[in-house]
Structure formats: structure tokens, C-alpha cells
């Protein structure tokens, strides 16, 4: 096995007794004490995640906006400085290279925050589709990212002096000083709860982690991050999305400027829509006993019709939920599906998303 990478907070996780797992080439904490408790900390209080494994790609200088506009499915030129948008990088076949957030710091200064597993692929993709001489930099290694998520996260961050963040609206960001270091703070997250993501130089990560813990934030691992995002029905690259998925099959229509066009993959996405999609991502709740997990077949009347992409017990709802692909004809709310769990068909129903 090749050597796993470590975030600047690795030693802090180990000292806290976290169970560490390999994720996207990094040795990451999956849980500190209990996924259920960490999940509840975010829904009711403040949870703190180290997501420094994620990547940051910066575009600066003349032409940056046009370059990123062409790379992303979301509108970029209309994004005002200080705002964030969710969008997709798509390939020429209309498949998803990655799902990302784009930050506009100034007129010609943009940052993409990308999935850890895709940093190298995305960076190569961005460079390949940027004009010669464009300034595109992968600053993932020098950047730490802490996600402070939860109902009381604004107060927790305020306790460190960043009181202005309480006024910050969703999908906006400010640059501020935290623990003596420059930081970029956005009101964004991947949990379905209120929260912030804080980007800062790697060298300042430990000081901010410790200060936030001292202010009452509870360390949370990737296990809780997964159950939280699943309750919010937020897709995870590698599970709901991959290089072959059309954004429309995944229900991400509102992040695709299909009318305006002019982005990579646009023609193919339109063509695939015209041809008709064979599958659609749906949320489901288990009716029978069991947990429909990623990779389990979905059947209907004994016939295989699809596959589960994510599934877990929902700590908030108390029963099991999941996401999966089924034919569009079976995607209506309330539609009966069976999840095949260890060879046995267990009843589920197509459910409204987000689940909570």
C-alpha cells in the first residue's frame, strides 16, 4: 500500500483517539467516539470537521472568468465578488468530472474547491482547458480547510472574534483574521445544517482547530459527515456522480446553465436529454427492516431495475434512507421499490429529498 497523505491535523486526530481510515489517499478520522453523537452535535450544536484533504485550484489574471465560465456548468460571470456557487466540471460526453464550489474573490480571481479524490484529475483538466499563459494553480497542499457546521456554529465562530460572520448570508464569504492568521470564511457546508467553511494556511490549522474545540465545537469524523450529507440528499462524487453521469440524471438541473450554454459538455448533456435518460437519481426510505447500502440492487416485481448509490440509517429520522438510480418511470414519490439486501427483497418507497 502506498503511503497515505496526512492533513496538518493528523496528530490532533490521533491524540483525540479517532479511528483513522484511508479516504481518497489520506489517513482521515472516520469517528472520534460515536457517529450518532457526532451527527447529533451538528444538528443541535456545533461540529468541527477537518476537510483539509479537499483541493483548491486558483485562477487569477485576465481571462480567468471566461476560462472558468467555460469549465463550469453554473454561471460564473454573474457571480459577484464575495459569493460562492455550486457547479460541475463536465467532460465532452456530458459526464461529471467533479462537483465543486467556485469562489469569486475579485474580478479576475477565482477559486474552485474540489473533491480530495479528484484534485490531480481536476487540476489537469483545468490546465488543459485554460488558454496558454493562464495562471492556474493547485494550492491544495498549502491550504487547510475546517468545516464548522451546526445550529450554533455562528456563535462558536463568534467566540473567536469573528462576530461579523453571524450576518454573513448563505453562499457568501469574507476574508478575516482568525487565530492570528488570514482566513477565508464562507457560509457553506455539506451537512444540511447552518455552518461555515474556513480556508487558511496549513500552518495555522492546529491553532484554529484547538481554539474552536475550546469554544465548544465537537470534533466530527467522515462517518457523521456522510450521514449528514445523506439526510440532506447531497450527492457524493464516486457514489452518486462519476465521469459517466449526466448532471440531469443526478437531478442537478438547477446548477446547469443549459439555456445559456457555452460550457464543456453542454452539447452532450442536451443530446442526452433529447435522447431520454434511462435512469434518474431518487431518494428512498426503507419500509421493511434493513439498511439499503451502496451497491445493493434495486428491484421491482422481482426484476432488477437499478442500484443503491448511498444508504445508511438516518440518525435524525430513526429509519434507513438512501439514494439510488432507477428508471424515470419508477421515480415518482411514493413509488414502491425493493432493495435487495443479502438476497432478500425488502420494501422501500421513493421519498422526498432532502430527507430532513
Amino acid at each position, binding site marked *: 500500500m502506498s503511503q497515505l497523505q496526512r492533513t496538518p491535523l493528523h496528530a490532533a486526530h490521533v491524540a483525540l483517539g479517532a479511528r483513522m481510515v484511508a479516504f481518497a489517499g489520506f489517513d482521515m478520522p472516520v469517528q472520534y467516539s*460515536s457517529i450518532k453523537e457526532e451527527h447529533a452535535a451538528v444538528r443541535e450544536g456545533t461540529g468541527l470537521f477537518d476537510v483539509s484533504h479537499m483541493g483548491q485550484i486558483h485562477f487569477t489574471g485576465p481571462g480567468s472568468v471566461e476560462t472558468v465560465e467555460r469549465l463550469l456548468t453554473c454561471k460564473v460571470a454573474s457571480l459577484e465578488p464575495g459569493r460562492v456557487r455550486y457547479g460541475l466540471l463536465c467532460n465532452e460526453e456530458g459526464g461529471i468530472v467533479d462537483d465543486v464550489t467556485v469562489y469569486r474573490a475579485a474580478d479576475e480571481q477565482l477559486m474552485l474547491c474540489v473533491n480530495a479524490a479528484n484534485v490531480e484529475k481536476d487540476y489537469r483538466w483545468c490546465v488543459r482547458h485554460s488558454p496558454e499563459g493562464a495562471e492556474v494553480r493547485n494550492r491544495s497542499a498549502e491550504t487547510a480547510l475546517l468545516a464548522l457546521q451546526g445550529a450554533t456554529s455562528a456563535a462558536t465562530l463568534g467566540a473567536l472574534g469573528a462576530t461579523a460572520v453571524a450576518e454573513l448570508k448563505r453562499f457568501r464569504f469574507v476574508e478575516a483574521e482568525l487565530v492570528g492568521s488570514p482566513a477565508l470564511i464562507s457560509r457553506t457546508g455539506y451537512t444540511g445544517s447552518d455552518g461555515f467553511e474556513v480556508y487558511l494556511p496549513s500552518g495555522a490549522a492546529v491553532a484554529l482547530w484547538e481554539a474552536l474545540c475550546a469554544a465548544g465545537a465537537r470534533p466530527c469524523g467522515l462517518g457523521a459527515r456522510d450521514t449528514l450529507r445523506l439526510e440532506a440528499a447531497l450527492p457524493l462524487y464516486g457514489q452518486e456522480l462519476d465521469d459517466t453521469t449526466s448532471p440531469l440524471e443526478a437531478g442537478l438541473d438547477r446548477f446547469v446553465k443549459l439555456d445559456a450554454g457555452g460550457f464543456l459538455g453542454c452539447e452532450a448533456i442536451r443530446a442526452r436529454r433529447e435522447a431520454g435518460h434511462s435512469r434518474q437519481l431518487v431518494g428512498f426510505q426503507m419500509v421493511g427492516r434493513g439498511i439499503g447500502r451502496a451497491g445493493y440492487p434495486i428491484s421491482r416485481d422481482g426484476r432488477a431495475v437499478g442500484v443503491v448509490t448511498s444508504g*445508511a440509517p438516518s*440518525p435524525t429520522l430513526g429509519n434507513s434512507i438512501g439514494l439510488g438510480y432507477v428508471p424515470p418511470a419508477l421515480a415518482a414519490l411514493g413509488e414502491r421499490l425493493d432493495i435487495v439486501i443479502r438476497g432478500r427483497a425488502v420494501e422501500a418507497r421513493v421519498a422526498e429529498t432532502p430527507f430532513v
Partner: protein
Amino acid sequence: MGDYEIPEELRYSREDEWTKSEDGRVTIGVTDYAQQQLGDVVFVELPEVGRSLEKGEPFGVIESVKTVADLYAPLSGEVLEINEALVEAPESVNDDCYGEGWMVVISIADPADQSELLDRAGYLQHIKDRADQDQ
């Protein structure tokens, strides 16, 4: 390595089950080590009463939020009782793995099978050896 409660009076399988033998009836559950490794247990599937178990065969499933693990029969025998309460309260496996978190009671076919089970010291050594292998 973490801290595990491994009672002296029980016998253990290499698949992290504990057994407690009383008059030919053997109660089976999972160890403190197993429940700590699994994390929050959310689902337990047990065999039907009356089923014959072959030593080493999977007889049930235990699921935590993140993982699915098979339960392996530590001994051959017939299932006499199952812990129905785990259907509604699987968290008992975390809260009280040697008490309310018990899984099944079996009648053993061959008492000599038990000689292959580990005592406390042997099981702790087994945990340690396995952890060393993973390093």
C-alpha cells in the same frame, strides 16, 4: 491499542464472539473489542430458533452506521433462544455487550469443541497479533 473489557470467566472465538457455557447451554454475543470496532450498532439479524449451526458458518449479521459484519458460529449446535429485544434495541450491543446485548443461546453438539476457544489472555493476545499484522 484501546482498552477493552474482556471478562475472565468467558471463552472467546477468533471472530470476536464471547461464549458462556452453563449445563450444555451456551450463550453467545460479541466482545467489547468487536462493539468498539463496529461503532454504533443499528441492526442485528439473528437465525431462527431451531436452526442447526455448523462451527464457523455465518449465522447472523450485525450492522453499524458504517459497516456490515457477519456473525460466525463459535461452536456447532442448535439455536435454542434468540435475543428478540435486539430488533428494537440494537444499541444494547454497545451499551452492555456481555449482558443485554447477548445474541443467541445454543445447545452444543460436541462439548470438545469448546477446547478450541480462547481464554481471556489468549483472546487479548489474538487482538494484539491482529493489530500488529495490520500495521
